């Protein structure tokens, strides 16, 4: 099965927007692209976090936990969005996947 990229976004009420895209191959995560119009202090640390997420490999069950772990491990203050927004965007991706795989099963 070829890999597919599924994206979702979450806007923090009155704040900024986070966009998450997950590359999925054989039901496994092969890279996460987490970008958006939020701010970070310091910005270069957040850039490193984003780069680390690009090469994240894990299974779908671990996705949320691994992403949050990589962000929390870095010493960075994210401004305009919070962890719940990121989790929300990831949950949306997982439910899209669940729906599409059940449709595939029905075929």
């Amino acid at each position, binding site marked *: 099965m070829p890999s597919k*990229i599924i*994206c979702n*976004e979450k806007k923090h009420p009155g704040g900024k*927007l986070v966009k998450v895209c997950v590359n999925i191959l054989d039901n496994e995560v092969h890279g996460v*692209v987490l970008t958006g*119009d*939020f*701010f970070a202090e310091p910005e270069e640390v957040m850039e490193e976090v984003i780069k680390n997420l*690009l090469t994240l490999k894990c299974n779908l069950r671990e996705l949320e936990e691994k992403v949050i772990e990589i962000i929390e491990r870095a010493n960075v203050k994210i401004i305009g969005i919070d962890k719940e927004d990121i989790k929300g965007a990831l949950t949306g991706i997982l439910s899209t996947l669940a729906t599409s795989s059940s449709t595939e099963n029905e075929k």
Partner: protein
Amino acid sequence: MTLRILIAEWPNNQFFNLAFEEAVYRTATIPTVRFWRNDKVVVIGRLQSPVLEVNALEAMRNNVKLVRRFTGGGAVYHDLGNINYAIIIPRTTMGIEEAFKMVGEIVVDSLKILGLGKAYYRPLNDIEVDGLKISGLAATKSADRVLVHGAMLVSSDIEILWRVLKISKEKLLDKKLTQSRVKRVITLREALGRDIKPEEIYESMIDAIKRKLKTDVFYDNINRNELEQAIKLYRDKYSRLEWNLAFTDELKDLISIEEYNALCNIGQPSSWQNKIVEELEASIYA
């Protein structure tokens, strides 16, 4: 405290304009304000992916370039009907949120000086008139300094702006403005009901800064140190696809080959733009 005012711009080289902005941020020894303009370009935030923000084919058709800036925040469209301002404060521990508030209030005050009493600062980083955005801010900080810069719509081509930016559905829903997206922004010309020259806006902003920061100002020229730094940053960073198209290859499958090629086209300077920088460099050592 004395504030250095710099009016320094290369509208025909959007990549160099951003390189120079970072050079001033890195080298400033005293508080500095820079005013400048860009010709047609989408400037994306440091933490954004071009694939998700820019309609590259539309941009290429309209001669619109693409540059990544060194501050976070969202994608904006610049043309000559837009003015940019940057405030750099060295030797401060001020955080980004505090700096946004300070500069947001300065911009609101300057708009009031120009006769636009209805302008207000909307945290985190917007200045609005009647719920419509007129100016947006972005910022970055390091251990000893902070920079806030912003763009103000004066008489920009709003039609092109909406065509070249990919607008997120979530954002539109949040602003409850799905029906009339063209009305999400307003230009200064429209808000004032008259034409206005950049110099008049710069003056009002300088007056507002003087009041807010209780400081004198002096007009200065660019110096050799910042120019050399800017040229280096241009060559190593801003003129390169590695910088402007970061976080692109990973999302390549989301766009067509044509759109990807268009991103590569708009995300680097044309050869005549590199020539502008070569001539600038030659002038330093002439």
